[in-house]
């Protein structure tokens, strides 16, 4: 308490002074250390270790848990204590240490408090010396982090098992390991006024459109958020219109997918603290492609892709279509099916429209409950959902069996394309309402509105619905509906900019709200 009384309230002020960049280090070690302590609000995880090297008073400032203790001992304390340069003057001594004693591969001179604090909080050890007006930031980060593991999403059968982790530099290294090309360029920048989150922008200089790269870096620089806790925070700032039902930015946990997207001329963004990297521009058709498509035989991959397209459409439209056909167009059912539906509907309390809505909402509640609960309880929820609600509601005459089947089937269908699950979920509800109100007419009207909406969008100058609309037959045949063999895919290097309808300048298009040029 006494300490906190002595220290001014620096929570806002210190950040401002740090950000202003006008506070330079003094030549006095005590002043520097106390100033750092003051700026960091005397935080308990701040460690300042004083020591002496050949009569020169020095200090190492670190953040607890952020550095490797063995590296600290071996790279800093041992050489400085056992074999220091024989120079009397403090400033000259420290300059010699900085220039002639390569302590670590990442070693930078620091002249002001804001950089110093930022380095400390980024896991660097900062070495200060009495009499020197600068410090040495030494990259010996050793904070605990999750090891490289199989991704939890985008599971593949035969592709790589490695997934991104939460450390940006490890992720960049994973990308570099897969793309040993000098054209792979990474730009490291910090985003977030307070969090100073490391963000790496990756692209291939000979593939990516520089207009897109510039647009992305400009947007990242101007993000007004204080804290960036994950890549999703950046999405709405990078998207042209974040109210669009379908995301215009692709998120992946897989370095192999990330690299292959870069090779197609896209720009990747890796954010520290999240295992999901962002890729843009993103097209609608990309959501139906998996890495496994390229490990299977082409005919099988093509079949799977068509299944995924079908699953998405069925997942979104089937319940609405069922309601529409039952209510307005029963003549479209086959006679036997119609009789079955009719007999099952006779025993239920609600009309088909109401049944579908209730069942849909119950299904989503069960899914959400199962997702958020611990795994052991999640199983119980599945049992309750599957057996109690499904089975008992039918036998109790509350729901008809076809409706339970339809909702269950569409639930399965929507999981076939996990990237579009949220869109599919909303569309399903909209189509149920449209089908229940106006039948096929309502479904068509909603479908056309969705088409208008999708077709009006450009992802950094590339039409979101490409290569379907505007049509690029070559691309559709080559690698959209079907997956060509590697022999044919290797014939030409196609980038996302070559798709039909790409605007001349992605950045300009982005700013003018999506007015584009179709080829």
């Amino acid at each position: 308490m006494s300490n906190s009384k002595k220290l001014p309230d620096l929570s806002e002020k210190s950040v401002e002074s740090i950000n202003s960049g006008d506070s330079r280090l003094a030549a006095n070690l005590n002043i520097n250390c106390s100033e750092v302590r003051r700026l960091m609000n005397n935080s308990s995880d701040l460690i300042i270790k004083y020591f002496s090297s050949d009569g020169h008073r020095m200090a190492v400032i670190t953040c607890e848990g952020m550095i490797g203790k063995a590296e600290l001992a071996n790279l800093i304390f041992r050489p400085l204590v056992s074999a220091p340069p024989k120079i009397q003057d403090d400033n000259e001594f420290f300059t010699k240490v900085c220039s002639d004693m390569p302590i670590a591969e990442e070693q930078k001179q620091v002249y002001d408090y804001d950089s110093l604090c930022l380095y400390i909080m980024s896991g660097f050890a900062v070495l200060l010396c009495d009499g020197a007006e600068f410090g040495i930031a030494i990259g010996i980060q050793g904070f605990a982090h999750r090891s490289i593991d199989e991704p939890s999403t985008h599971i593949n059968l035969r592709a790589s098992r490695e997934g991104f982790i939460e450390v940006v530099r490890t992720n960049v290294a994973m990308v570099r390991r897969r793309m040993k090309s000098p054209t792979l360029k990474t730009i490291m920048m910090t985003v977030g006024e307070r969090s100073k989150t490391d963000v790496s922008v990756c692209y291939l200089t000979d593939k990516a459109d520089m207009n897109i790269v510039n647009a992305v870096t400009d947007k990242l620089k101007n993000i007004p958020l204080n804290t960036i806790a994950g890549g999703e925070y950046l999405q709405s700032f990078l998207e042209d219109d974040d109210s669009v039902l379908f995301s215009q930015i692709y998120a992946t946990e897989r370095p192999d997918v990330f690299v292959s997207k870069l090779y197609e001329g896209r720009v990747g963004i890796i954010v520290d603290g999240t295992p999901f990297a962002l890729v843009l521009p993103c097209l609608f058709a990309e959501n139906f492609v998996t890495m496994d498509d390229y490990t299977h035989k082409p005919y099988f991959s093509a079949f799977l892709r068509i299944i995924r397209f079908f699953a998405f459409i069925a997942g979104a439209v089937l319940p609405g279509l069922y309601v529409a056909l039952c209510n307005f167009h029963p003549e479209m059912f086959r006679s036997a099916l119609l009789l079955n539906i009719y007999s099952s509907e006779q025993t239920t309390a609600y009309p088909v429209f109401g049944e579908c809505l209730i069942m849909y909402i119950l299904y989503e509640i069960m899914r959400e409950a199962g997702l958020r609960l611990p795994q052991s309880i999640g199983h119980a929820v599945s049992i309750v959902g599957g057996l109690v609600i499904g089975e008992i509601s039918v036998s109790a005459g509350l729901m008809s069996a076809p409706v339970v089947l339809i909702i269950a089937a569409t639930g399965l269908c929507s999981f076939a394309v996990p990237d579009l699950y949220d869109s599919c979920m909303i569309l399903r509800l909209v189509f149920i309402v449209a089908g229940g109100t106006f039948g096929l007419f309502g479904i068509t009207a909603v479908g056309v509105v969705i088409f208008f909406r999708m077709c009006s969008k450009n992802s950094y100058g590339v039409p979101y619905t490409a290569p379907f609309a505007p049509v690029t037959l070559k691309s559709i045949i080559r690698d959209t509906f079907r997956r060509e063999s590697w022999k044919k895919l290797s014939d030409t290097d196609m980038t996302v900019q070559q798709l039909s309808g790409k605007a001349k300048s992605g950045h300009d298009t982005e700013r003018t709200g999506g007015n584009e040029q179709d080829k």
Partner: protein
Amino acid sequence: MSRISNRQLVITFLACRLSAEMMTPSAETVLYGPDRFTAIFLAKIIAALLYIPLILVTLRFKGDSPVTCAFRRNKVFGVAVGVILAVTLTAAAVQTVISVEHYITDTLLNNILTISGIAVLVAVSVYGALKGLSAVTRSSVFAAAVFGLLIFLIGVTMWDKVNPDFIYPAFIEDGRYFVKCTLSEISMNSEILIFAVITDEIRSKPHKTVLYYLPLLLVILEFLNLLYNLILGPYMSKIEYPLYIIASLSDIVIFRRLDGIDAIVWLMCGIIKTALIIYCVGRIYSVCSKKPDTKKAVVVYGAFIFMLCMVLGSDRTVYEQFRSVMSGGIHILLGGVLIPLTVLVAGRKKQSGGEKK
């Protein structure tokens, strides 16, 4: 300004034109026999001739639309041309919306209220127009895909119902019907009005759109007519929507009939056509008022179309009178032929006047 390609516009025009063909009750104009094959062919030749003044305008004024050319020549002249084109487009839009609404009533929803049907159609079309030309033209690709699926499914399910004996060699059997059918085919070409407004927004060589569009349309219409003749034979003279009936006879195992898909295709195409027309009127407003933002104008025009459709569409006899006027093709002659000719002549006069000076 957004720009689209010739190919994109060709697909859109095909969607618009075929929807007009499919949603117009054809009890009198689609009769069994060889006459219609010849009528379609002749109608396309005449349609090609009708496009000539417009093509000349685009060639002479480097792709500019007649409205833009007229407005550049003289503001009053430009506004007059814009108003005439807007009126003809309005007539086409009203006819489209009401025919779609009637088609829905006749096929999908017998008990739908006219007001709700028209309101939904116009609202969706206005939304499309607000989203822009690219959104509308790109959407037509999806309609074309569903149409392709429909034809494929019909082909798969109806091949055993084809009767080649229904086709017999002849040229023109009934002269009166032949003329009526030809006129009807020509009067459905309201795409010429759309083309007259959006040539500015075609990326390069707008005339190529016509070069691709008309032959493709000819092939598709002849193919569909062949399909009607082969499957329906003499019965095709007794029904209003032949393709709808063929689709309803199809059985694809999962569904007993395909008429729902048929209705969806033409409903989509009808909405796309209306959206395109509303967009065109917004574009005319933009050229004449020199205001790039047309959102308010498009919404107001949508409301106007809604009111007109309510007046004309609530009573079938009134609509039939309106349709009989439109089937004369006066709107096409006025907006698609006379206006481009006038612009051509006016441009020539200005040029000769400039030379004198």
